[in-house]
C-alpha cells in the first residue's frame, strides 16, 4: 500500500521530474501543461504524468500507464501524459531528470502525487489511484480482510445498491481522501449486508469496523453504523467523529469544554465521576461512548478536581452543540436513559450539499456579498461612461467652479461604489440633453488627494456644487430615481419666494411647478407675517435643508392674512398641498426652530395608509410602531382601504403603522410572506408585525372579511392577548457568515512543527531515497507542509489546523504501521 507519509505532502508543489519519453503511445493523450490544465473539469479526477519533452528513453512505465487508461476510465478518472515544453513552464515540470512523478488532480486541485516507482504495473497504478477500495462479494472476503487488519487498521465497509450511483461516488470520494488511512471495502451484494445483521437493506450502508484496537485475533471488530444518508459530506463528518478519541477525561467547567464533536454539530455527554467510583464510572462512560459513537462526544468529568460547582445529585451533564445554550444537569440512572436523552435532543444540522461541490462545503473563498458578486459578474459590460464627465486633479476645481455640477466620488475597486455608478449612469442617460446640471465623477483610487480635500473619506459620496453655495452632500437612496428627483428638484432654489396671492394659489395647486411635482408629491408653503423675521429665517433654513427632497415655498406679503384665513391657519403656519389627493392641509408652527420645522415637514410627508415599498419603508420604520400590513396582489381593494382608513380616523390604529404592500411593485414581499406563513393562504393577507418589540407576527384570520367590525374585534383580541402569533421573527444577531483563515494557528503550527517534526523511522526504501533527493529543494516547502495536507475545505472555524495536525499524527503512525 502506498505509504501514508506521502499523503502528508499532498499539495506541496514539487518540481516534477521525468526521464521517460515514449512517442508512440496511442490511447494515452499527450498534452502540453497549459492544454492539460485547461481540460480539467471540476469534480473529475485525472491522473497526469509529467514528462520532459527531451527525455530520451522509452519506458515500461508508460506502457503500464497506457494499460491503466481504460480501467481508470471506468472509475471516471482520466489519464494523460503531459509534455513539459520550454515555452510553458508549469510548476509540475521540473528541471532535473532523476525524479519522476505522476499527479492525481480532482478538478484542478492536486490530491496526491506518486513517485513512479510505486506505480510499478497497471494494477499498482489502478490500486494506488483508487486507494485500494476492495470490492468483495461474500462474507468470507470480508472476514479475511477483517482478520488481516486486526490490530493494524480500521475498515470502512459500505454497501451500495449499484456501482456508479451517487452513494457509490460518495464512498469513492471519501476513499480518495481517507484511502491511505482506512481500508475501504465495497460490496453491492444484499446477501452480504444481511449476513452481517443489517436491517433496511434497501438503502446504502456504511460501517466503520474498529479493527485497529483488536489485539485478540479471535475477537470481532466492533462496528459502528453510519446513520445518515451516504453523502460525501456525511461520510466525512462520520469519519471525523470516528477519529476523535472515544472517551476524554476532563476536569474543567463543562460550559467551557469544546471538542471536535461540538464543531461537527454533535452534543457532548459528560458522565460525572468521583474518585470513589472512578473505575465503575469509567466503564459506564466507555459503554455509553460506544453506544453514542458518531452521535455525541462522551467525556468523563472528574467532579473532585472541578473548580466550578455542579449540582450534587447530577450524574450526567448534557451540552448541546448550539453555541450559547447553557448545559443541562441531569440525573439519569440508566445507560439507556442517557442514550435516549441524547437521541431525542440531538440537533443534527442539516448541511445541504450542492451537487457540483459536494467536497467543498461552504467555501470561504466564495463571494457571499451580493453587491461585490454582482458587480464582479457585471464587470465586463461597457457602461456609457462618456455621459458623465470624468474629473481629475487638474480639472476638478475648474469644472465645479464653472458650472453647477453633481460629483460622484467613488473608488474603482469598491463594489458599492461601482454598483451605484451604474445608477448614476442611468441618471445621466435620463437627463441627457435636458439638464443644466453637469454630471461628473471622480475616481478616488486615482485622485485620492482631491477627494481628501473635498472631505470625502468614504465611498460613494455624491455632492452638488452650485455657484455661490457651499457644496451639498446628497443623503438619499443610492438609486436612479431618488438621485434624479434630487437633481430635478434642485433646478430651483428653496424655499421659493412667492410674491402674490395668485402665485401662491398656483403654487399650492401645483400649476406653478408642474414639471417638478412629479418628483415631490407635496408642496409646502410657509405663511408668515412680514414681521416674523426669525420664524422666516428658520423656515428658510429648513427649506434649504430639505432642498432636493421636497418643494418648499414662503409667503410673507402684507396680505398673508387672506391666505391664512382661507386655509384656517393662524400665523405662522405651514400649508401642505398634497397634489395626488388634491388636498391642502394647514399645520400651525408652534416652534420655529429649523430642526423642528424639518421634523414637522418630514412627518407630514408620511401618509395615513401608504403603499409600503423598498424605498419608503425606512421613513415608516423609524416610527417604531408595529406594522399592520395588507399584502395585496395588485392594487389594494378600495373597500379594504376604506375600512382601514375608517379605523385610522376612529383612532383605533394609533399605536400601529397601517400600510399595504403591492406584490406586483414589490415582489420581494413574497419572500416576506413565505417567512410568515407555511403554507401560504390566499391573498390578500392582513398581518400585524411587531418589529420593534418581540418580533411576533399575527395574522388576521383569512376566513374573515376585511371589514371594520372584524378588524376591531381582532385588534381587541390582540390587545387582550387572546390571539396567537403565527410566528416570531428570528432575533439572531448578524454574525460572520463564514469563518476566516486562522493564520495565527497556522503560524503556530509551523513554528511548533519545525522543531518537532521527524521523519518516520520505518519507511519504505523508496521513500527514504526520495526523501533524500528532495531534501535540498524541499527546504522552502517544509514550512508549508503541515497546512497544505488536505486541500479539502475546512468545515469549521479554526478546525483547519487541527485537521492538518491530526493527519500529520496519523501519518506518522502509518508511516510505520501501514507500509507493506
Amino acid at each position, binding site marked *: 500500500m502506498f505509504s501514508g507519509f506521502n499523503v502528508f505532502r499532498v499539495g506541496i508543489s514539487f518540481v516534477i521530474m521525468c526521464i521517460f519519453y515514449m512517442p508512440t503511445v496511442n490511447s494515452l493523450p499527450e498534452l502540453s501543461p497549459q492544454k492539460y490544465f485547461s481540460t480539467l473539469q471540476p469534480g473529475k479526477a485525472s491522473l497526469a504524468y509529467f514528462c520532459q519533452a527531451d527525455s530520451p528513453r522509452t519506458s515500461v512505465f508508460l506502457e503500464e500507464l497506457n494499460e491503466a487508461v481504460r480501467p481508470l476510465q471506468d472509475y471516471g478518472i482520466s489519464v494523460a501524459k503531459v509534455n513539459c515544453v520550454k515555452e510553458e513552464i508549469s*510548476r509540475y515540470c521540473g528541471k532535473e531528470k532523476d525524479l519522476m512523478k505522476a499527479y492525481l488532480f480532482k478538478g484542478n486541485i492536486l490530491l496526491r502525487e506518486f513517485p513512479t516507482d510505486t506505480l510499478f504495473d497497471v494494477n499498482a497504478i489502478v490500486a494506488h489511484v483508487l486507494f485500494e477500495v476492495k470490492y468483495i462479494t461474500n462474507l468470507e472476503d470480508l472476514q479475511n480482510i477483517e482478520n488481516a487488519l486486526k490490530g493494524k487498521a480500521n475498515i470502512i465497509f459500505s454497501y451500495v445498491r449499484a456501482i456508479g450511483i451517487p452513494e457509490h461516488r460518495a464512498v469513492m470520494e471519501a476513499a480518495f481522501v481517507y484511502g491511505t488511512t482506512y481500508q475501504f471495502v465495497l460490496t453491492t451484494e444484499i446477501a452480504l449486508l444481511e449476513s452481517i445483521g443489517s436491517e433496511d437493506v434497501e438503502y446504502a450502508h456504511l460501517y466503520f469496523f474498529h479493527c485497529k484496537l483488536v489485539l485478540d485475533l479471535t475477537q470481532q471488530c466492533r462496528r459502528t453504523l453510519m446513520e445518515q444518508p451516504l453523502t460525501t459530506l456525511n461520510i466525512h463528518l462520520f469519519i471525523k467523529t470516528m477519529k476523535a478519541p472515544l472517551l476524554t477525561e476532563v476536569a474543567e467547567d463543562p460550559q467551557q469544554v469544546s471538542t471536535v464533536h461540538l464543531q461537527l454539530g454533535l452534543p457532548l455527554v459528560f458522565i460525572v465521576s468521583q474518585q470513589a467510583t472512578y473505575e465503575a464510572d469509567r466503564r459506564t462512560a466507555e459503554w455509553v461512548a460506544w453506544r453514542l459513537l458518531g452521535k455525541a462526544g462522551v467525556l468523563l468529568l472528574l467532579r473532585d478536581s472541578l473548580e466550578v460547582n455542579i449540582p450534587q445529585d447530577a450524574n450526567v451533564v448534557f451540552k448541546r452543540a448550539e453555541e450559547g445554550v447553557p448545559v443541562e444537569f441531569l440525573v439519569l440512572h440508566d445507560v439507556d436513559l442517557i442514550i435516549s436523552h441524547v437521541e431525542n435532543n440531538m440537533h443534527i444540522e442539516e448541511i445541504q450539499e450542492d451537487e457540483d461541490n459536494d467536497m467543498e462545503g461552504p467555501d470561504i473563498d466564495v463571494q457571499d456579498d451580493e453587491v461585490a458578486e454582482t458587480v464582479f459578474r457585471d464587470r465586463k459590460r461597457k457602461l456609457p461612461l462618456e455621459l458623465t464627465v470624468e474629473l481629475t486633479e487638474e480639472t476638478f476645481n475648474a469644472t465645479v467652479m464653472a458650472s453647477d455640477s453633481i460629483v460622484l466620488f467613488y473608488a474603482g475597486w469598491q463594489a458599492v461604489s461601482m454598483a451605484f455608478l451604474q445608477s448614476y449612469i442611468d441618471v445621466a442617460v435620463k437627463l441627457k440633453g435636458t439638464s443644466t446640471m453637469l454630471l461628473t465623477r471622480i475616481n478616488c483610487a486615482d485622485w485620492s488627494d482631491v477627494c481628501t480635500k473635498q472631505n470625502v473619506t468614504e465611498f460613494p459620496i455624491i455632492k452638488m456644487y452650485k455657484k455661490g453655495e457651499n457644496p451639498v452632500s446628497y443623503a438619499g437612496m443610492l438609486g436612479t430615481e431618488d438621485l434624479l428627483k434630487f437633481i430635478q428638484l434642485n433646478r430651483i432654489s428653496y424655499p421659493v419666494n412667492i410674491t402674490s396671492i395668485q402665485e401662491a394659489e398656483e403654487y399650492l395647486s401645483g400649476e406653478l411647478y408642474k414639471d417638478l411635482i412629479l418628483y415631490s408629491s407635496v408642496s409646502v408653503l410657509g405663511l408668515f407675517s412680514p414681521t416674523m423675521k426669525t420664524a422666516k429665517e428658520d423656515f428658510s433654513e429648513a427649506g434649504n435643508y430639505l432642498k432636493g427632497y421636497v418643494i418648499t415655498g414662503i409667503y410673507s406679503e402684507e396680505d398673508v392674512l387672506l391666505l391664512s384665513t382661507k386655509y384656517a391657519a393662524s400665523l405662522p403656519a405651514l400649508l401642505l398641498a398634497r397634489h395626488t389627493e388634491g388636498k391642502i392641509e394647514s399645520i400651525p408652527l408652534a416652534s420655529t426652530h429649523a430642526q423642528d420645522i424639518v421634523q414637522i415637514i418630514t412627518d407630514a410627508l408620511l401618509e395615513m395608509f401608504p403603499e409600503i415599498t423598498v424605498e419608503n419603508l425606512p421613513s415608516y420604520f423609524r416610527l417604531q410602531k408595529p406594522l399592520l400590513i395588507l399584502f395585496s396582489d395588485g392594487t389594494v381593494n378600495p373597500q379594504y382601504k376604506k375600512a382601514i382608513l375608517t379605523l385610522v380616523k376612529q383612532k383605533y390604529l394609533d399605536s400601529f403603522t397601517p400600510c399595504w404592500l403591492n406584490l406586483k411593485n414589490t415582489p420581494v414581499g413574497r419572500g416576506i410572506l413565505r417567512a410568515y406563513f407555511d403554507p401560504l393562504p390566499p391573498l390578500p393577507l392582513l398581518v400585524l408585525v411587531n418589529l420593534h418589540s418581540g418580533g411576533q407576527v399575527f395574522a388576521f384570520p383569512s376566513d374573515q372579511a376585511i371589514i371594520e367590525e372584524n378588524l376591531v374585534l381582532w385588534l381587541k383580541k390582540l390587545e387582550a392577548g387572546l390571539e396567537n402569533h403565527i410566528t416570531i421573527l428570528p432575533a439572531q444577531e448578524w454574525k460572520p*457568515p463564514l469563518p476566516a483563515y486562522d493564520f495565527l494557528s497556522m503560524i503556530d503550527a509551523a513554528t511548533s512543527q519545525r522543531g518537532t517534526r521527524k521523519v518516520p523511522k520505518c519507511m519504505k526504501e523508496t521513500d527514504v531515497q526520495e526523501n533524500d533527493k528532495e531534501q535540498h529543494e524541499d527546504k522552502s*516547502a517544509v514550512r508549508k507542509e503541515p497546512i497544505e495536507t488536505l486541500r479539502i475545505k475546512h468545515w469549521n472555524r479554526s478546525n483547519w489546523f487541527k485537521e492538518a495536525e491530526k493527519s500529520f499524527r496519523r501519518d506518522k503512525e502509518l508511516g510505520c504501521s501501514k507500509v507493506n
Partner: protein
Amino acid sequence: MGLSAAAPLWGPPGLLLAIALHPALSVPPRRDYCVLGAGPAGLQMAYFLQRAGRDYAVFERAPRPGSFFTRYPRHRKLISINKRYTGKANAEFNLRHDWNSLLSHDPRLLFRHYSRAYFPDARDMVRYLGDFADTLGLRVQYNTTIAHVTLDKDRQAWNGHYFILTDQKGQVHQCSVLFVATGLSVPNQVDFPGSEYAEGYESVSVDPEDFVGQNVLILGRGNSAFETAENILGVTNFIHMLSRSRVRLSWATHYVGDLRAINNGLLDTYQLKSLDGLLESDLTDLAILKDSKGKFHVTPKFFLEEANTNQSADSITLPQDDNDNFAMRVPYDRVIRCLGWNFDFSIFNKSLRLNSGNAFGKKYPLIRASYESKGSRGLFILGTASHSVDYRKSAGGFIHGFRYTVRAVHRLLEHRHHSVTWPATELPITQLTSSIVRRVNEASGLYQMFGVLADVILLKENSTAFEYLEEFPIQMLAQLETLTGRKAKHGLFVINMEYGRNFSGPDKDVFFDDRSVGHTEDAWQSNFLHPVIYYYRYLPTGEQEVRFRPAHWPLPRPTAIHHIVEDFLTDWTAPIGHILPLRRFLENCLDTDLRSFYAESCFLFALTRQKLPPFCQQGYLRMQGLVSTESLWQHRVESRLLRDYAPTGRRLEDSSQQLGDQEPLGSPLAPGPLAQSVDSNKEEL
C-alpha cells in the same frame, strides 16, 4: 536668488540681537522648537512646524540647505530612485516610488520636476532642498554653526529644562524642544597599524586618471566602497575589497542601505574571473606596511607584533614568506578607506546624556522608538541619525523613510505640547474594509517605513464605528493612548507591511522557485512586501507583551492576524483574492456581518428579522440604501445570492402562478450557513 533672499531676512536681526544681548547675557532668544541642520530631515520638520504655526528656527552651518549633498556622494550619483512614471495618477501611491521628495502640499515640490535621471545627480538634490526651503518660506538661520549644546534646568520648561545652543559667534539660543537633524557627518575610521596610509572616501580623488595602472585596495564593503570601485574599475590593474563581513546585497536583504545593484559592477567582474576580488577579514587584525618603493603590503597584525617593530615592509616577515599563495601578497599602490559615517557627538554636553547605541548601532545616538533621546526628554533625533530605530530593517535612515518618521514625531509633539490629538478619521463600521483596502493600496508611509510606522484602527463601543490613525510608530503601541490622546478601549487593528519572515537576508536565495504564493489560504507565507493586519482585543500595554514579544514579531502577539496575500503588482484590490478574505477576517474579529446589501435585501431583512446587518442599519434604515439596477439585479438572481421573487420572471404584470409552490425560504443571504454559488471553483493550480 534664494540665498540673497534668505540672508537679509535672517542676517541682520541675528546680528542685532547678538549685539544687543551679548553684554546682558540674561535673556537669550527662546524658541519652542529648534532644529539643528537644514538637510532633508531638518527641512521636513520645519515644514510641519510651519504648517502648524509653531514657533521654531532651523540652524544651518552652511549658507544653503543640504550641504552634505554638495560634496557627497563623491561621485555625484544618488542611488535613491527618482521614478517619474508609475502608470498611476494617485499622488500618494507615487510617493512609494519617489525616494527623494520631501512631503509637502505643493505638487511643484516633487523631485521629479528636478531631475529626469532615474538615479539623479546630487546637485539636483541641493537645488531641490534649496527650493523647498525658499518656496515654503521655512525659517532657516544659515551660516550658523551650533558649536555647543547644553541643558538648563527650569521647572517652567515643557520638559523641565531648556536646551541651550551656542553658535560660533557665541550667540545663545534657548529651546524647549530640540530636533537634531545633523545626519552622520564624521567619517568612520578604524585604528590599525598603517591605517594612516589609507586615503579616505571623503578626500580621495574621483578622477579615474589618477588610478591608471594601479593596484588598489579598498577597505569597506558599503555603497561608498563600491561606488568608488565602480569609478575606477576600468583603469586599474585590479581592485581588491576588504571588509569584515560578507557583502550584503540590497536585493537580498530588502534593505536599501546594503549594496545596491547599481554599484555592484565589481561583483560582476570578480565572479566573471577578471582580476578584481573580494576578501573577508577583520580590519582590526590587519596591518598595512609601506615598503621602500612606497607600495603597501597587507599583513596580519600578529606578524608585526612578532617582529616587534613597525618598520617598513622590507624588514619584517610577511605572510607570503611562509604561505606563498596568500591572497594579498601583491603590493598595492593605494589603499582607500570607505568605512561609512558616524554621528557627531562632539557638540553635545554630557548633561544631555546623548550616548551612542550598542555595538550594532555605535554610529547612531541612542533613542526610543518615538525618536526621543533616551537621555533627555524633549531631545529628538531626526533623519539619517535616527536610523538606529530600524537599522538594516526599514528605510528610516533615508529620505524616503524619515520624511514619514519626522511627520510622526511632529504629530506626537502636537499632542504633547499643544493638545492636538493625533489626526484621525471617524467612520462607520461599514467602511472598515474599504478604509483598509484604500490605505494598503496607496499609503506611501506604510510602504516605505514597513515594520516601523503602521496604521491603527481604534474601535468604538459596540464596534459600530472606528477611528483611523495613520502611520503611528508601532514600537510605541503600548503608549498609544498617552501619545495620541485617543482611546483604545474597545479593541484595535494595526495595519503593517511586512516581508516574509525568512525571506530577506544576506545569504538568502530570494529567487527560489515558489517564492510567491497565490492562494489566499497561504497568504501568511507571502514573501514579498504585503499588508498584515493585527487584531487586539485590548491594547497590549504590558511590558511582557510589548518587550518580550515572540522572536521576529514586529508586534506583540495579537488575538488574530491576517495576511493579505502578496501581489505581484502591489495592487490589493482583487475582490476574491484580497478583499473577501480581509472582510472575513474583520467580521470574525468583530463578530458581525460586514457584507453589503442592496436595499431590497435590507427591506426583506427589516420585515422578517428583528435585527439588521450593519450595512442595512447604517445605510438603508437611514434612507441611504443601495438600489440595484436592472442588470445587477439579473446577476443577483443568477448568482443565487437572491431569489427571484417575481412569480414568473422578473416583475411581470401578470402572475397566474401560486405562491405556495415555490421552495421554502432559505435566503442564502441569511446569517448562518450559506448555499454555494454555482461556479465557485476558483482554485488555481
